[in-house]
């Protein structure tokens, strides 16, 4: 696999093309299909469908897959477009009255209705209501919450369809399919863990999966389990991206607030990932310099116990790092888990063992533990390689136990 993989979000790459590929919500899908088919027999009582439910569970995808399955022309409007009265009329006014020239049936979708804002999209909701009253083609509305007061009159004209979060098992099964397509050998426990953590949000589960697994051939529970300790508002990957690729200094600083993550931990993440994103030597040096200064302020906090200094730690680790480089993405670079944290957690035992070995050598050789580790242990390792019998003999004389001997001789 090449080093830089063009970044295609897996949510895009594995977007269902057909209703049967959409996870869960079988009942809702059946109702939608029934309603759309009823249009074949004439205009139904409810000319519009209002799909609602939490984010990331496949509402939009369902409508797109439906249009695709039934070979309908989908006319879409989402929050990215203006939805003033005028704009709605332009988009849906004519379309709702006439079929396509080429005989393909039409389907009008107003997505992300929650995003319709009072001022900018003034009159938009009222116009949608008007369009629905007279439409001759099916209209589908989507929002997270259908029961907002401003949707009241709209709601009365619509058939309400609730989308529910898919179960953990359903999400995990979907992730497994993606892994199979990507050639990733993923442990079931790992996928269940990601699914569980996403709380039914399939989109975020897939994003997590991509961040954790892309480019790997294996995904183990260990790879993902570190996510456990952090229950955050935004995934740390997003925060990192927001800092490293910040629009400006304030945006980089603001990213901190998105993270429900310990600052020390975040600093470790930034530190680990800087060199994978910032390649230019000058920029790399500047970014590391900013981070090392954040570290100095961290030390000053420890020394003075004055936590108000934390603001400088934040400035330097976010705005300081972001402003030291051009922030041009060179393609998809997966974020890496901080090696130092991994080492700290996995090697605590190793370090304890090492210092005990040092103590025992030191006792015999009249040295401190740390000097014994530095001055004697390296030679002892070589003696073990050259002459295991001699190595063992010396180790016994030093009162080292079997575990220590195994460690030194490299047979762990």
């Amino acid at each position, binding site marked *: 696999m090449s080093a830089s993989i063009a970044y295609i979000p897996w949510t895009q790459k594995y977007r269902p093309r057909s209703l049967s590929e959409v996870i869960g919500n079988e009942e809702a899908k059946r109702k939608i299909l029934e309603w759309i088919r009823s249009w074949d027999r004439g205009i139904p009582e409810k000319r519009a469908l209002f799909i609602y439910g939490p984010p990331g569970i496949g509402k939009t995808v369902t409508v797109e897959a439906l249009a695709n399955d039934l070979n309908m022309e989908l006319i879409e409007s989402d929050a990215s477009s203006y939805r003033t009265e005028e704009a709605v009329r332009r988009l849906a006014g004519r379309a709702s009255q006439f079929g396509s020239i080429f005989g393909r049936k039409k389907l009008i979708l107003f997505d992300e209705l929650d995003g319709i804002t009072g001022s900018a999209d003034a009159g938009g909701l009222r116009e949608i209501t008007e369009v629905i009253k007279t439409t001759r083609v099916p209209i589908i509305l989507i929002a997270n919450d259908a029961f907002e007061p401003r949707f009241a009159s709209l709601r009365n004209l619509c058939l309400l369809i609730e989308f529910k979060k898919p179960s953990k098992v359903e999400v995990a099964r979907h992730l497994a399919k993606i892994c199979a397509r990507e050639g990733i050998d993923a442990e079931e426990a790992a996928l269940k863990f990601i699914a569980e953590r996403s709380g039914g949000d399939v989109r975020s589960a897939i994003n997590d999966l991509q961040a954790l697994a892309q480019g790997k051939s294996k995904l183990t529970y260990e790879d993902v389990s570190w996510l456990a300790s952090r229950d955050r508002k935004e995934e740390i990957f997003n925060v990192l991206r927001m800092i490293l690729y910040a629009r400006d200094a304030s945006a980089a600083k603001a990213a901190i607030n998105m993270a429900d993550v310990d600052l020390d931990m975040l600093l470790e993440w930034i530190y680990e990932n800087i060199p994978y994103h910032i390649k230019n030597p000058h920029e790399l040096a500047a970014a590391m310099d900013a981070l090392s200064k954040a570290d100095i302020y961290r030390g000053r906090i420890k020394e003075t116990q004055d936590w108000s200094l934390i603001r400088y730690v934040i400035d330097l680790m976010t705005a300081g790092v972001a402003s030291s480089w051009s922030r041009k993405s060179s393609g998809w670079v997966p974020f890496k888990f901080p090696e130092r944290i991994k080492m700290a957690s996995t090697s605590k035992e190793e370090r304890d063992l090492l210092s005990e070995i040092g103590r025992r050598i030191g006792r015999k050789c009249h040295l401190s533990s740390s000097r014994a580790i530095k001055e004697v242990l390296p030679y002892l390792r070589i003696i073990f390689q050259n002459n295991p019998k001699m190595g*063992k*003999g010396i180790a016994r004389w030093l009162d080292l136990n079997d575990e220590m001997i195994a460690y030194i001789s490299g047979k762990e």
Partner: protein
Amino acid sequence: MSYEMWTEKYRPKTLDEIVDQEEIVSRLKSFVKAKNVPHCIFAGPPGTGKTTAALCLAHDLYGENYREYIMELNASDERGINVVRETVKTFARTKPMGEVTFKLLILDEADNMTDDAQQALRRTMERYTETARFILIANYSGKIIEPIQSRCAPFRFTYLPREAIIKRIKYICERENVEILDDGIEAILEISEGDLRRTVNILQTAASVGKPIDAEVVYSVVGRANPHDVREMMLSALNGDFISARNKLRELTQKYGLSGIDIIKQIHSEIFRLNIPDRWKVKLADIAGEIDYRLIQGASDEIQLSALLAKLVEAGYEIKKGL
């Protein structure tokens, strides 16, 4: 056949066995004769016989069972004020049985003690002078607080002369039935820089290869003992590979137990051996100094050293551009 570390096997047991440092030895012998020892500071570089001299003094003073009369503490392991308050006091306040009326407390790596602990030690030294004498061992006597220095007889240990080390190497090889060639001896001398402990450790490791020791055996053994040395890390950075330089840094701290201060010291001495323009050497020394200062102030080793590595990457890039 029994195995042990040669540094211990060939460590002199009595003052008579110490062949060099004549002046020091003769002063110590006079203490033995008088059966009185003042508080002492043994200062000098590593591997010059400070600990050995203290142990030999104890042996000659108390006889074969000298261990019962001395306490050996290593300040690096057991520093801190509590050790002085508890362990040292408990040991120091009781009078020993026998001809010699005091015990001997050998405090190794005393320059690693905190100032607070040294202050406490000073009072203990005064209070229990009747029953205990202290030998403080340090690389730099300057790091021992003035009030303690003024209460101690100073002993300055220097690097052993070349001939003395050669003699020692040959003596050990003869006893161990190990063949060593002249260029092997030269190589060991060059690497160990007058540090006898290092000399003997290298010698024993080279002997474990099982063939006559020549320069090649010595260099290969030493090279393997420090496989990812600081220089290699610096060269990676200068060549623009920050990530692999950082990995080497991690290995140095993790596997070889080097502290940030150890590493910055080595970086500093390597800077002037690098094949780069002098102007850059000075620049890098300045940067190293700043990082060194930060480490002393308690900043995080790895992040600070990584910042230094990033500067090396930048320097390497500039140098290549011919700036």
